[in-house]
């Protein structure tokens, strides 16, 4: 009997769709991926829905509504291997900037009838709600890392996504340090690799798309920024980007918010 293809599901919470689009952006690999797995639930790409349980679930987006806080539990129960993809799913995303403010005030800025809007006070990552088997970082994720995660799962091995800093990628790439040579502020020393050190190669400092690296020394970097003339307000903004609510970045930004 031929072996059953693993069932892949893609789920969306609060997000921009960019990370799941990464799968459709695998122009060269998409048909091969579709050959290796059964795409069982992927609303952005298909109106066909195959019932669970699913072998692998990719979860994009953060939890921001009472309904979604319930929905994620159903998805966890229906999934053997659950991977959260992107900064929204792994850290709360840019919409987690609300976590530092009063969300009621936010609603009234955007919507004329705040009573129509149902939302939670905080935007939180998937792992705050259910057990997550693997977190794939990035804003957006790197599509080759996504193919790596799928390939690792299909072959029963651990995904190879380095936890070291963007700095290492600059060295590998041969990019001269933009902080040392050009005095740019750069989050590279505390940010996880995965983008192939893109920004420094384009003559700008890293702004933290992939979130904190393992054991980041944010305080030391903040001291360098201060020495270079950055104000506390600017420091707060620097650490409050797409991964603002990731613990090391959150803590550092709060240190400078007086």
């Amino acid at each position, binding site marked *: 009997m031929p072996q059953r293809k693993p069932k892949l599901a893609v789920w*969306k*919470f*609060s*997000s*921009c*769709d*960019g*990370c*799941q*689009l*990464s799968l*459709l*952006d695998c*122009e*060269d690999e*998409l*048909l091969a991926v*579709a050959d290796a797995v059964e*795409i069982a639930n*992927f*609303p*952005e*790409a*298909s*109106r*066909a829905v195959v019932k669970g349980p699913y072998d692998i679930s990719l979860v994009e987006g953060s939890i*921001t*509504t009472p*309904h*979604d806080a319930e929905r994620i539990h159903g998805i966890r129960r229906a999934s053997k291997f659950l991977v959260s993809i992107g900064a929204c799913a792994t850290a709360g995303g*840019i*919409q987690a900037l*609300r976590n530092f*403010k009063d*969300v009621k*005030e*936010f*609603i009234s*800025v*955007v*919507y*004329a*009838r705040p009573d*129509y*809007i149902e*939302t939670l006070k905080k935007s939180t990552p998937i792992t705050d709600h259910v057990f997550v088997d693997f977190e794939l970082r990035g*804003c*957006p994720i790197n599509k080759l890392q996504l193919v790596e995660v799928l390939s690792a799962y299909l072959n029963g091995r651990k995904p190879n996504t380095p936890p070291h800093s963007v700095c290492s990628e600059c060295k590998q790439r041969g990019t001269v340090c933009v902080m040392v040579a050009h005095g740019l502020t750069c989050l590279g020393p505390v940010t996880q690799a995965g*983008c192939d050190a*893109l*920004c420094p*190669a*384009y*003559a*700008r400092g890293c*702004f933290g*798309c992939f979130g904190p690296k393992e054991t980041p020394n944010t305080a030391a970097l903040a001291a360098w920024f201060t020495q270079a003339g950055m104000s506390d307000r*600017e420091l707060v*903004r620097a650490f409050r980007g*797409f991964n603002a609510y990731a613990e090391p970045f959150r803590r550092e930004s709060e240190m400078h918010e007086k």
Partner: protein
Amino acid sequence: MKNRTIKVDYLARVEGEGGLLIKVKGNQVSEVKLRIFEPPRFFEAFLRGRHFSEAPDITARICGICPVAYQMSACHAMEDAFGAQIPPPIRSLRRLLYCGEWIESHALHIYLLHAPDFLGYEDAIRMAKDHPDAVKRGLRLKKAGNAIVNLLGGREIHPINVRVGGFYKIPAKSEFLALAEELKWAREASLETVRWVASLPIPDFERDYEFVSLRHPDEYPFNEGRIVSNRGTDIAVREYEQHFAEEHVAHSNALHSATKEGKSYFVGPLARYSLNFDRLPSHVQDAARAAGLGTVCRNPFQGIIVRAVETLYACDEALRLIDAFEMPDRPFVEVEPRVGSGCGCTEAPRGSLYHRYRIDERGLISDAKIVPPTSQNLKTIEHDLLDLVPKNLEMQKDRLQWRCEAAVRNYDPCISCATHFLRLEIEKE
């Protein structure tokens, strides 16, 4: 006759989360609701207090499919506020970047999201089993567009190389020239795409729309021009809010736009094409005519043909821009922030995208307003369904439901944008 309900809980092959509820009483549609349950993300609120230079990167995160559009409208709005002048070579490169996004986004919608509706497939992967050459052509075309965004933007989703005033770094001329070979293939492939989509079984359906888009004195519009309509509107971008307004409806986390008279209007490829046909090069006009289009297109189901025509135009324009490439003296112009407000409107693949910002004395954003194309089209989509359903009540329920879904997908709606959209429920009471 009995009452019926058509209900789609979660609309597929659109960007973001929404559903559709249509209630039919006898031969009358009593209610159409495009329900947007994509959670609100409050961009306008958390942009307050951020530095003006952060707006392009932050607003890009509203949409993973058209981040370039957000970056462009944000830059133009800031430059408007500060009175910055952008030199022609940088302006050309912005057009080139936009060409890349149009090719990538249109190819995605034509081949992966919309064509399966006309051929009766659940998705492009199933369609690929019977039409492998078409799907492969679509993917390669998409990749050719993405290659432009990759080079000039750094990456295809949320590019990192755009800044107020220009770019961080301009790649070498030889790198642009290296794109030309594949773009020549893409130009031929998009001509083939125009022929292919013209052969699809496209439903007859027309409405008398108010089309709204940018119009430029010499060019098919991307970044600049006046906002015009086929009902006589002809205004500067600055006057946008005097003519169009947003309202908040209970069934939607997206605001609905309308004209100040409360009328629905239409933005996107059909509107752009119908208002700017004379700005297309003659061979692109010929391809459109050969595909059965007139100078104005009022059938939203033919949007797939218009997208193919625009893809052909974008490939052509990209090749022209690469051929005429001129390295700017500097990758960007320095902008001097000052207190004031500025607005920008550019043509995202899905239609006009309006941004307005107020900047304080520290260069920080004190107020932001963003009107994405999909919120401008929501009312029009609901009106299409009000018209479409009564004409097709003899259809079997699942076929009618599919037709309604396709009618929504005509607009390539981007729900994540609109909430800064879709489940289908057709309820026959």
